């Protein structure tokens, strides 16, 4: 099966790349590309550590989806809030988290963001208004209502970015949260990272509509679908949604079309999809895409990738040198 021809799809928002590019500027674009490489390097290392039996637990890799994380985070401001989900390493890195503390958390160390208590699915950094990844599909959606209400009551101009998967759009929480955010014009951006599958359930089987963004109309909020492998498109759509929210005009549902290159989690034989489909999507590598936009040579790209990997190696070294949580602290952190 061929991957959907997003480029010529008139139902997919196609921003003016040249304008955007000029506006964002080479420098930032290069930073974005580096972050995308950093995410990929983090995920590849996570996979490698896992394969070598050095990780206890599971993980959900976002390889192939880097443009969504980077484009969305770039569209937000200092002080804004983030709620994301189980496949959240990329969002967390793009949000500006410390790679060392993330890797330490992934390895369950005391120096990790959550002192090794949370792990891959629960990395949070409340100080930076990163309210955490969530192991429960759509678990962050009802919470976003409270964050939005709190922003309104505190009269700040913050916005809450909520990132969830296509699978989350079929949960009960989706209906309750998006409706509440809509009727109260809450400053929330709902970003649905549609990577075509919820575990083994394809969006074709799980939905009877061509775009998840069409559900926005059920709440009287704007909805838009963008190419999730085009970092500029994601950036532009999320930025417009965030501006709308900041103006007090309420929430927006942004759907980013992308693809999960790896299996759902540690053990997935991927019998529910074909190699060709995976290949077709890999041909749309968001990293190469941005690199070619920037006109980078193979050599330059390899160098970026190596820089990223080097940074990840340092993070691993930091994490491995970090102490395990002290058993004496086991009961800590339950009650404030």
């Amino acid at each position, binding site marked *: 099966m061929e991957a959907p021809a997003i480029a010529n799809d008139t139902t997919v928002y196609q921003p003016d790349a040249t304008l955007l590019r000029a506006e964002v500027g080479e420098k930032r674009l290069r930073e974005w590309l580096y972050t995308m490489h950093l995410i990929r390097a983090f995920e590849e290392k996570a996979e490698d550590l896992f394969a070598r039996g050095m990780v206890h637990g599971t993980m959900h890799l976002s390889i192939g989806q880097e443009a969504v994380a980077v484009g969305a985070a770039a569209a937000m401001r200092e002080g804004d809030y983030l709620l994301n989900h189980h496949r959240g390493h990329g969002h967390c890195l793009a949000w500006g988290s410390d790679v060392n503390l993330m890797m330490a958390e992934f390895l369950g160390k005391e120096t990790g963001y959550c002192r090794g208590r949370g792990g891959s699915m629960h990395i949070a950094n409340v100080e930076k208004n990163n309210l*955490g990844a969530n192991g429960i599909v759509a678990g962050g959606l009802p919470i976003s209502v409270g964050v939005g209400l709190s922003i309104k009551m505190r009269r700040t101009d913050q916005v809450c970015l909520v990132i969830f998967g296509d699978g989350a759009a079929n949960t009960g929480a989706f*209906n309750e949260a998006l409706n509440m955010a809509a009727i109260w014009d809450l400053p929330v951006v709902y970003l649905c990272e549609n990577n075509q599958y919820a575990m083994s359930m394809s969006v074709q089987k799980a939905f009877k509509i061509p775009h998840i963004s069409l559900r926005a109309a059920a709440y009287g909020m704007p909805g838009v679908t963008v190419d999730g492998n085009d970092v500029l498109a994601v950036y532009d759509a999320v930025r417009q949604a965030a501006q709308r929210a900041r103006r007090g005009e309420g929430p927006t549902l942004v759907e980013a079309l992308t693809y999960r290159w790896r299996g759902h989690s540690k053990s997935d034989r991927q019998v529910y999809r074909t190699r060709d489909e995976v290949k077709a999507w890999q041909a749309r590598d968001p990293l190469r895409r941005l690199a070619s936009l920037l006109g980078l040579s193979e050599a330059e790209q390899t160098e970026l990738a190596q820089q990223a990997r080097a940074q990840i190696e340092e993070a691993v070294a930091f994490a491995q040198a970090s102490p395990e949580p002290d058993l004496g602290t086991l009961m800590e952190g339950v009650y404030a």
Partner: protein
Amino acid sequence: MREITYVEAVREALAQKMREDPTVFLIGEDVGVYGGAFGASAGLIEEFGAERVIDTPISEAGIAGACIGAALTGMRPVGEIQFMDFVTLSMEQLVLQAAKIRFMFGGRARVPFVLRMPAGSGTGAAAQHSESLENWFVHVPGLKVVMPSTPYDVKGLLIASIEDDNPVIFVEHKLLYKVRGPVPEAMYRVPLSKSNVVRPGRDVTIVAISIMVQRALQAAEQLAKEGIEVEIIDPRTLRPLDDEPILDSVVKTGKVLIVHEAVKTSGFGAEIAARIAESSAFDYLEAPIRRLGGLEIPIPYNRTLEYHAVPQVENIVAEARALAQLKV
């Protein structure tokens, strides 16, 4: 002292905290102009406006999530679930999110909110509007569970719960709302996790919660006429539980009856019985522990059936008397 009803005491606690603390707000179904299904927030939207007294669509998961998200970002929400039965729709948010966020984040977050809800039968509302599910929450580390039995306690405990930095499941009782009792007008706190010896006695210890405290007190008066002096203890906060007064009382009386409205099997009484049976008070027990709880059925609609589905005064009298008369 001035006497007001239980529901008026709830309302007063809410109003006083809202006046004092701008981060406190109410959210729930029909809490606005309707004043709440049982009138707990009557008049509050008039005083505090629609931004701090928020009517929601029928979205119990959304209400819980709204409390969590606001609490995580600096507010102190007080949510209302119209009937405790409907909290079955909020369990994921309460148990997997609210209770665990702080721990999962390495102790680096706080989720201070209160979720109020009325439990209990006796109004003819049948099986889906009469649940008493408090023990589910007692099983969940990270949550606090408060279940007041008097107008005085409900005001003081609600204020203390709103000021607590943790998620508090605050369980009221439909039949208590109209009960009157002395309540100071000024703000005051009843500390969480402090059990209350409601009535001293030497013969039998009765551990009762919520409306069963009232019924136990009536039973105690009848028993007193028979020369049986029961000691009644109301834990008030079920989690974290202050069990010392209970154990001390058992050491003194040697006989204990535990009473709650919730279904007996795996109800809160089981935990109390277990705490006693595994404590040093065990050696002082002169008779098997007795539990009186709801029957193993859903709450029936028919008034007579409904009445007999949960412990009443006469049942408490009979059980306590049997215990007291037990020759050791």
